C-alpha cells in the first residue's frame, strides 16, 4: 500500500473503485457520520455518485431502472445525437445516458486511465458519457411547490412522488432546475426517480447502481460518497486531467443527493451551470405580491377620486 495510492488521507480506502469497500447497504446503519437525519431511524442521507469518467455508455442503468420500476417503454426513435436515443429525463426516463462527441486530444486522459489508448488516426477524438438522474436536492424546489403534499422527503433524505396522491397539477415540472420531472402521457401524473425507495427499504442498492458494470454509478451514504469522489478527483488532477470537476458535491453550492464527476462544463452534459433553488426566494416573492396587491387596492380606490359615478 504505497502512499500515492492512498487517495483518501488517513483512511483504509486505497482505491476508489475497489467495489468490495463500496458502501453496501448493510454498512448504512452502523457508520456514525453525524449526518442530519431526515427520518426517525437516524440513518444517514443516501445518494448517488456518478463518475462519468468510467461510464462506458452501455445504458444498463436505463434498462435496469425501467425493469425494476416498471417504467413504460418509450417509442423507438432515432435522435441522431450520437448513441443517445433516450433524449432527456422525464416521466418515462429516470436515467438518461448522454453521449458527447468531442475533438480533443486525449493523451493525458490515457495516462490517467480514463480512456483506452487510441489507435492511430483517431487520437484527437473523445467521447464523454454520463448517466443523468434526479439530483434528490438538499432543498428541492419540486417538493416545496407541490400543492398536494404528494412529493415528500424520505427517511433516506431522498425526494419521492406518491403516485396515489399526485393529481398532475404539473407545478413541479417547471420548478425543477434540472428538467427531471414530467407528466406521463395517458396517465396525467408526474413521475420521476425514487432512488428505488422500495429497494432501499429492504437494504438493497438501487437497480441502476447494481446494474452498472463499471461502478460509474455508486450508491451509499452521501458523506462517504463525497469523500470518495474528492479522492478520485485528486487522483485525476494528479494524472493531469485538469478539466475534471465535481458537480453538486459541495453542500455550500447547490446541494445534490446525486452528484457527478464531469470532464467538461455542465451545460455540455445538459446540466445547468448554476442551478438555483427558486423556492428559497418565496418570502421575497410573497413580498412582491403583497406590494402589487396593495397597489391594486390603491388603484381601485383612486378610480373613485373623480366621483362615485
Amino acid at each position: 500500500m504505497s502512499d500515492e495510492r492512498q487517495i483518501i488521507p488517513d483512511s483504509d480506502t486505497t482505491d476508489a473503485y475497489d467495489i468490495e469497500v463500496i458502501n453496501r447497504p448493510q454498512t448504512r446503519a452502523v457508520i456514525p457520520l453525524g449526518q442530519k437525519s431526515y427520518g426517525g431511524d437516524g440513518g444517514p442521507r443516501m445518494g448517488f455518485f456518478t463518475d462519468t469518467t468510467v461510464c462506458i455508455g452501455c445504458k444498463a442503468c436505463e434498462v435496469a431502472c425501467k425493469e425494476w420500476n416498471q417504467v413504460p417503454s418509450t417509442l423507438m426513435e432515432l435522435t441522431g445525437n450520437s448513441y443517445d436515443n433516450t433524449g432527456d429525463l422525464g416521466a418515462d426516463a429516470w436515467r438518461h445516458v448522454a453521449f458527447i462527441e468531442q475533438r480533443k486530444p486525449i493523451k493525458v486522459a490515457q495516462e490517467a486511465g480514463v480512456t483506452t489508448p487510441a489507435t492511430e488516426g483517431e487520437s484527437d477524438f473523445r467521447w464523454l458519457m454520463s448517466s443523468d438522474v434526479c439530483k434528490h436536492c438538499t432543498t428541492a424546489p419540486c417538493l416545496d411547490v407541490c400543492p398536494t403534499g404528494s412529493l415528500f422527503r424520505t427517511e433516506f433524505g431522498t425526494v419521492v412522488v406518491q403516485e396515489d396522491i399526485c393529481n398532475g397539477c404539473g407545478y413541479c415540472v417547471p420548478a425543477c432546475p434540472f428538467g427531471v420531472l414530467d407528466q406521463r402521457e395517458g396517465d396525467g401524473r408526474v413521475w420521476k426517480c425514487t432512488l428505488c425507495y422500495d429497494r432501499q427499504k429492504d437494504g438493497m442498492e438501487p437497480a441502476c447502481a447494481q446494474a452498472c458494470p463499471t461502478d460509474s454509478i455508486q450508491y451509499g451514504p452521501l458523506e462517504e460518497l463525497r469523500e470518495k469522489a474528492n479522492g478520485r478527483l485528486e487522483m485525476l488532477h494528479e494524472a493531469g486531467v485538469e478539466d475534471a470537476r465535481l458537480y453538486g458535491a459541495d453542500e455550500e453550492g447547490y446541494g445534490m443527493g446525486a452528484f457527478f464527476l464531469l470532464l467538461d462544463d455542465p451545460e455540455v452534459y445538459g446540466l445547468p451551470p448554476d442551478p438555483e433553488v427558486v423556492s428559497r426566494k418565496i418570502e421575497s416573492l410573497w413580498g412582491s405580491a403583497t406590494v402589487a396587491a396593495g397597489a391594486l387596492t390603491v388603484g381601485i380606490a383612486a378610480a373613485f377620486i373623480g366621483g362615485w359615478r
Partner: protein
Amino acid sequence: MSEARPQKRSVSEEVRRNGQGETRSYYAQPIINEPTWEWQIPCYFFTGGLAGASSGLGLLADLGGNERLARTARLAALAGATASPVLLILDLGMPKRFYNMLRVFKPTSPMSVGTWILLAFGTSSGIVAATDVLGVFPRLGKAAETVAALLGPALATYTAVLVADTSVPVWHEARRELPLVFAASSAASAGAAATIFTPPEDAGPSRRLAVGGAVAELGLTEVMKRRLGELAEPYEKEEAGRYEKLSTALTSSGAAFTAILGRKWRWAAILGGALTLGGAAAKRWAIFKAGFQSARDPKYVVKSQRERLESRPPDQRRTETFGRDGCAT
C-alpha cells in the same frame, strides 16, 4: 494533496469572454422541462385577475351608492370566480383528484396558497350573489362582499408569484415586476368589463380604472422587459411576440376609445372595453408563451446562469468544485 489549485475558468466562460458566438449545450436540447400547462392556465390568469379586481370595484361602488356599477362588478367577480376553478380542474393531469389540493396548506407552494384564496374568494362571491338575488341576509352579503374585496387583489397577483416561483428564466427573473404587471392588467380587465355593462353615466370609476390599468400595464411591461435585458428576447419572437404585439395594440386602442369617447357614447365604451379586455387576455398569453419559449431553448437558461455565476465572487461558486477546498470554476 488539497493544496490550493490555480483558479480555473470554465471553457464556457472562456468562450463567452472571447466572444466566440453561442452558448454551449447538449445538442441544443432544453435543460429544464417545459411546463405541462395548457390553454386553461392563461385563461385562468385572466379570469382570476378580472374577478379579483372586480370585487374591490364592486365594494367601493356599493359604498358610494352607485348600485348599477356595483352590481355589474359583482357579477363580473362571480363570473370570474365560477370559471376559474373549472379551468384549473380541467388542466389537471388527473382532474378527479382535484380535492387533493385541499389536503394541505403550504405557504411554500403558491399553488396551494392560491387554491385556498380562490376557494375563499369563490365562496364569498357566491354568498354576495345569492344574498343579492334572493334579497335575504343583507348583513351577511355585506360581510362576504368585504371579504371578497380584501381577497381579490391577492387572487389577482398570486398567479404572478406562481409562475415566478419556477426555473423558467423569463418568469423567474421577472419576479419583481410580474405581480405588478398582473395587478395592472387585472385593473384594466375589471374596469373594462364594468364599462361594457354599465351605462356611461354610472361608469366613471370603471372607465378611470380601465384606462389607468391599461396605461400601467403598458408601462410596467416595458419596465419588466428592460429589467430582463437580453432575456426579454422571447417577447419579440414566435407566439409570445405575436401575443405581445396584439396585446399592446388592443390595450392602447381600447384605453384611447374608453378615455376619449367612452364617456359620451355607449358604443365607444363597449368597443373600448372589449379591446382592453382582449389586450389584458393577450398579455397573459404573451407572458405564458414567453415562458415556454425560454424553457425550450437552453441558451436562455445557460446564458442567464453563466452571467449570474460570473457576477459572484469565486468562493461562492460551489456548484462545481475542483478540489476538496471547494476551489471554484
